[in-house]
């Protein structure tokens, strides 16, 4: 039905789906990863590592609850340290998933199809990792429910002027909606797995999850309008979430936080880091599971382009911060700018500039965008860079604010690191389980893609 040969071999733009695929072949290829292909030793090794880290996270949290946040490096003036840095970082990473699946869907970008599934998974896992931190960074986590608007016997309510309350709502909404979006997308594929599974147990499990999906035309119709609506809702949501996260800082009066540029530049930064993370995951994934046909150079290159674009927005953000700090003429802001460049934490700031501004400029070159190993390295660099950005914002702004007499320094402790690395392990573990249990690429949408490409080629 399709004829790859008709396409010239020396084309510059790779297709979103390598030719030669049929409904059956995509179904087979993707579902087999879950159903028939055994987990290799590689997977087991990776999972063991990840699980070990999760255990470390468990210990770190237990010790934290036993002793208090004093086990971390935080102090007065630096009341927020790694916990908030990691929170913002993880949330940011989450954003790419929603962006890819929702916004690109609305923009009708076909190339999203083969990456949106695990991008969404990434979102959910990242938000789970992020969600841990606001909870545990409180001095008395067991009272965190004070932040919920429930009718307490004390007759008191949350304080809705606080950005932290906005966070509670934004993050929980974001998690719920992402989960729904992901699940709705999964339903037809769950049906496929149900129908292709051999073991009774698998049939029943996938069967229950598929909720009896049978691909009826009417169902598809409602399904599609629901899916589109979710995409339409998720788009402003994702923007709002990181805007709210940026409010955590922008609403405060701390020099370096109290600025109006934060919302846009946080959102851009989020997408920036998010795409970096998608690349970090997609590149090994397509290699290991031989999905090069589905996740083609086209995808990688497009993501690289998005990174370049958002990277430039972030750069603009940095520039504006400096411009405003001098133009605004507030001695506190001016000092902060100066302190970033030359203060005790200068290596962090310059490393951030290197990772987020300098190195990514390589993406201007097509050769770099299509050179997979380089791209992989670049994505890692940007991940580090964006983490540094949050560190710079949180720590450098706090450690020297208004009263010189109260200036201090922050240095992370072993437990800061254990918690952070622990969440990395948790993220990896969830991802590994996901790869084994659910189709990493949306089969139904791939079939559509097959249909379309075959039409195009007719």
């Amino acid at each position, binding site marked *: 039905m399709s004829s790859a040969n008709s396409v010239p071999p020396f084309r510059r733009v790779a297709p979103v789906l390598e030719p030669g695929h049929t409904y059956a072949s995509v179904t087979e290829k993707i579902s087999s990863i879950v159903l028939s292909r055994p987990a290799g030793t590689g997977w087991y090794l990776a999972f063991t590592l990840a699980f070990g880290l999760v255990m470390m996270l468990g210990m770190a949290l237990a010790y934290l609850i036993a002793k208090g946040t004093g086990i971390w490096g935080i102090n007065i003036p630096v009341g927020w340290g790694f916990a908030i840095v990691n929170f913002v970082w993880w949330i940011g990473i989450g954003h790419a998933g929603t962006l890819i699946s929702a916004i690109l869907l609305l923009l009708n970008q076909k190339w999203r199809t083969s990456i949106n599934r695990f991008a969404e998974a990434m979102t959910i896992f990242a938000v789970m990792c992020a969600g841990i931190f606001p909870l545990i960074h409180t001095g008395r986590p067991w009272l965190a429910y004070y932040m919920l608007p429930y009718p307490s*016997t004390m007759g008191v309510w949350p304080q809705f002027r606080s950005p932290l309350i906005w966070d509670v709502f934004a993050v929980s909404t974001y998690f719920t909606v992402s989960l729904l979006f992901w699940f709705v997308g999964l339903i037809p594929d769950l049906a496929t797995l149900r*129908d292709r599974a051999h073991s009774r147990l698998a049939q*029943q499990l996938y069967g229950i999850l598929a909720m009896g999906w049978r691909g009826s035309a009417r169902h598809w119709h409602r399904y599609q309008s629901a899916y589109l609506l979710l995409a339409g809702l998720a788009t402003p949501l994702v923007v709002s979430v990181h805007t709210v996260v940026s409010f955590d800082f922008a609403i405060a009066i701390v020099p370096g936080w109290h600025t109006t540029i934060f919302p846009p530049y946080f959102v851009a930064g989020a997408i920036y880091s998010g795409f970096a993370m998608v690349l970090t995951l997609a590149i090994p994934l397509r290699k290991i599971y031989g999905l090069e046909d589905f996740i083609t150079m086209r995808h990688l290159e497009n993501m690289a382009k998005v990174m370049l674009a958002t990277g430039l927005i972030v750069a603009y953000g940095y520039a504006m911060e400096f411009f405003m700090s001098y133009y605004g003429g507030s001695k506190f802001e001016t000092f902060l700018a100066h302190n970033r460049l030359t203060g005790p934490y200068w290596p962090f700031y310059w490393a951030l500039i290197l990772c987020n501004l300098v190195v990514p400029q390589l993406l201007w070159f097509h050769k770099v965008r299509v050179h997979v190993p380089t791209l992989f390295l670049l994505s890692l660099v940007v991940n580090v860079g964006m983490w540094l950005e949050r560190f710079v914002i949180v720590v450098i702004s706090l450690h020297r604010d208004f009263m010189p007499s109260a200036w201090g320094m922050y240095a992370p402790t072993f437990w800061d690191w254990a918690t952070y690395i622990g969440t990395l392990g948790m993220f990896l573990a969830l991802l590994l389980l996901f790869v084994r249990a659910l189709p990493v690429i949306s089969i139904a949408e791939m079939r559509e893609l097959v249909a379309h490409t075959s039409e195009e080629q007719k």
Partner: protein
Amino acid sequence: MAQIFHRSTNFISRFTLFSGLFLVGLALLVLGAIARSPYLTNQNIAREQPVQFSHKHHVGDDGIDCRYCHTSVETSAYAGIPPTKTCMNCHSVLFSNAEYLEPVRESFRTGKSIQWVKVHRMPDYVYFNHSIHINKGVGCSSCHGQVNQMPLVWQASPLLMNWCLDCHRNPEAVLRPREQVFNMDWKAPADQAEIGRALATEYKLRTTAELVSCSTCHR
């Protein structure tokens, strides 16, 4: 292809889906109810005491004034629990060798205090002051109930913050003339609304905003 599920699963699955949501809501309601229940507030639970002391007898029957024992109620934050001496003032003469008064006599002999079981318990971060309430015309029975009818005293009110706030927001509802403060049988008259307002102005009650400020009770 064969059916994986029996027809009944259709009902079961839908039921579980929707009842799941319902149950969560229910659980929350139950939690809220428990928090307000005597199980946690200890409301209406009469406490056994080391001495069979009956407020009903002493106040209700003998008509002893609250202040005879709770001496500091008008002057101090604490109403004051009477020292053994106070009991002995009478009981060195009356029922001077009644079996059930032995703990009292023993305490007086040995100088070891009687350990009464606390009935009304505030968290330590709540700073309640009896004297000012008495002074502003809040009667004993408004919070403690009709102690003159309690053989063993129980906590008549939930003592939840909400309950405190109700009164601090609308003290007029319970204010009484100062001379009525220690009257256990005082009932709000029909025109309590007006009386209350009048008393509030007479006693120079602070504004609601002041009365519900956090530091009014928490320090």
